[in-house]
């Protein structure tokens, strides 16, 4: 083993430890948001209006369930990309990364359009098709949690695109692909956070309807 390869391994070991410590730290950030949720919502959650398209009543919970499934599934393709680059399979790597990006985008659009939504009030565009950030603690916590998570999804997507681009240029090898590994761990972590956030926002507690509904 050459000295350079050895030092890459040593540095990768350190990177790995540093990255996990970063996640430990981030867990306190997301944990803080969960604390806020349980402190402020207690055993309740906002029960939002159904989406009505003609005769169809779609529960407000359907879209979140679907995008949750998409996000969880995206982790599979992320893992596939990492395995592919470890086996020097550039084509699968490239395709899997793009699929992951696509699913991440679907998740993000689901958050932005179906959870946050946009509508026009007196000619002005305001947030909040179902619920707005100014709707007391329900709005505040919901936007706080989904917003902080979405911020991490966006940064994950940026990392994915960078890694895809570097992979396209042949920057990674089966021995040296810490960038891919880091992106993969990051993406899985963001997924894991959502596993805790999704039930906290949509499932746990008694649904509270907005006044007048």
């Amino acid at each position: 083993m050459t000295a350079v390869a050895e030092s890459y391994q040593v540095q990768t070991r350190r990177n790995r430890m540093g990255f996990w410590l970063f996640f430990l730290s981030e867990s306190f950030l997301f944990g803080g948001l969960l604390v806020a949720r349980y402190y402020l919502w207690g055993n309740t959650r906002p029960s939002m209006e159904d989406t009505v398209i003609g005769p169809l009543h779609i529960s407000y919970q359907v879209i979140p369930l679907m995008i949750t499934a998409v996000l969880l599934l995206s982790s599979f393709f992320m893992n596939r990309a990492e395995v592919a680059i470890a086996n020097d399979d550039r084509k699968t790597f490239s395709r899997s990364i793009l699929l992951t990006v696509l699913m991440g985008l679907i998740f993000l659009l689901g958050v932005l359009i179906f959870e946050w939504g946009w509508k026009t009030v007196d000619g002005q565009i305001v947030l909040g098709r179902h619920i707005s950030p100014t709707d007391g603690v329900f709005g505040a916590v919901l936007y706080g949690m989904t917003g902080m998570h979405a911020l991490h999804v966006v940064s994950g997507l940026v990392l994915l695109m960078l890694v895809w681009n570097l992979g396209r240029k042949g920057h990674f090898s089966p021995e040296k692909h810490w960038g891919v590994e880091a992106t993969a761990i990051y993406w899985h972590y963001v997924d894991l956070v959502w596993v805790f956030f999704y039930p906290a926002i949509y499932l746990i507690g008694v649904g509270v309807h907005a006044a007048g509904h």
Partner: protein
Amino acid sequence: MRVLKLGLVQGVFGGILGWLFGFALVIGSRLLLGLPAQWNPNLTGLAAYEPAVVVAGIFFVVGFMIGVGAVSDWLKWARGIDTPFNHGARIPGTSELARYFNVDYSHKVIGIQYAITGVLLLGVGGTLAMIFRLQLAQPELNFVPPDVFNTMISAHGMIMIGGILLGVGGMSNYLVPLMIGANDMAFPRLNAFAYWINVPGALLLCVAMVIGGWNTGWTGYPPLSAQAPLGVQYFFLGVFFIGLSSILGSLNIIVTTMTMRSPGMSLFRMPVFVWSAFATAIIQLTATQFIGLSFLMVLVQRILGMGFFDPGGPVWSEVDKWAGGGNPILFQHMFWFYSHPAVYLFVLPGLGIISELLPVFARKPLFGYKWIAMSSMAIALVGFLVWAHHMFVSGMSNYLRVPFMMSTLLVAVPTGVKFFSWLGTLWGGRIEFKTPMLFALGAISVFLIGGLTGPPLGTVATDLNLTDTYYVVGHFHATMFGGFIFPFLAALYYWFPKATGRMYNERLGQLHFWLMTPAFWVMSLGQIFVGMHGMRRRIATYEVGLDIGTAQMMVTIAGFVIFISVLIMMFNLFVLARRGQRAGANPWRSRGLEWQVPSPMPEMTYPATPVVVGEPYDYGKPGSIYVQFAPAAPALHTGASITGGD
């Protein structure tokens, strides 16, 4: 025009550009969305554009970091360009001094950058204190108007905390790699980033004072902070970015300690300072997220109307469906979940310095090494369980009081272990009263005042009477001075010859100590005294009838004596020592690794790998060896092994 090429100057330019960009971005998007440029038509000046000012503040930091060059390598990596890691000046042809104003990856440069910036911030905070102490010197003065007074005490608090965090960072970054025999930190680029992000953070804190100030005290409790002037936003942002530095820096310390120790240095052969830096890093890594999050929540409550801490619900809400429900107590829980452990992270490195210095100057082994190492970890861990003792009168659930009282008093156990270890180390030693040792001993005396005044605050019954009085101020300043300032000064004097190769003036150092320590006793006991006589915290003046004018005057005078003594130190270290005696490699006859290489240290501290073969603190034991240098390496040292002690 060489000055214009300095990273710091380019960073400031980048920051200003970033600020303008961020401001224009928000105003532009508001206009595009058909909203009026002014966020709140009832306000004038910058406050009318609060969201734009906040976003501009964030872009200020981004612009600064790009301008200073702290992210250049990472941006290259993102494009697939590898950058070599050069140990040494990164920009060829620049002077040694210029390294300190540029991004530099050497942990020794970064450590000194941290320490000097820390000293500067402590100086700013101290100057503020001098001004408002004049206001408090006599009853019913009107030297500083009340709103300015409030801004000044708030700024004093947070700027001092920033200075302490930077001082802690300085000690950890400089000393941990040296003490474990590593040539640098595990992530040198991240290290530079973590230092430099403090600079725009500290600038935001200072700017906050002039864009309206804030009247909340350093704690920034809502609902007051939700209504405070605009300055509170930059206060939040400044703390947020300094906190980010804490998180990244501590991550680096932990990985460095875990993976880069010299061969033979098992965990229980590490110097005790490394243990305390490690314990500190655990707190910084995790708890810091909570202060960042709590401040972020108030920040968005102000600009987006998200009512986390607003029980009544935002009155301007257009679709007011689920109104209200916010709770300011939640803020206090989240704030203190960081801010109490933060106190331990301020003092733990200082206590480590005391334990480090006593054996050297008493020429005796450290008493109870394992216990003292474990007590640092215990303080760090118990520190996570005590936060609500700041909230006995906040209106939180009553049943929480007694458990938090008990966990708080539990902290006295590991702290007591440290005190007895110090006494055991000193007992029967032949003590050399050099300046660093004097400051270590002074630290013990001052920390004792802080420690003994603690239990009455941790006990519910007495705290209900003492809370929010100057008693708390006295207690806190004693713990901060005993736990951080005194040991930090001891560390400055102790490692000064190592870093510069020159000896400071011993007489002036002693003068500094003998001015500062009695003055601090007067100041601290005076604050405790006026507190017990009814002086409230955060009040711009007090009545003649309280009959504490004399005591307040003495506190003010003592404060000025401390200020002058620090000026003497600056003169000693920064001016006089340029012509000081050459120090030699090991003026204190220490067994530590870093003392076995020449002073000032070479760029690569340890060209030969140090191998640890014995216990770190066996001073006075004949024939005991702590470290040997690998024999195969070039002959840097006469004598391959170093024996310790007399």
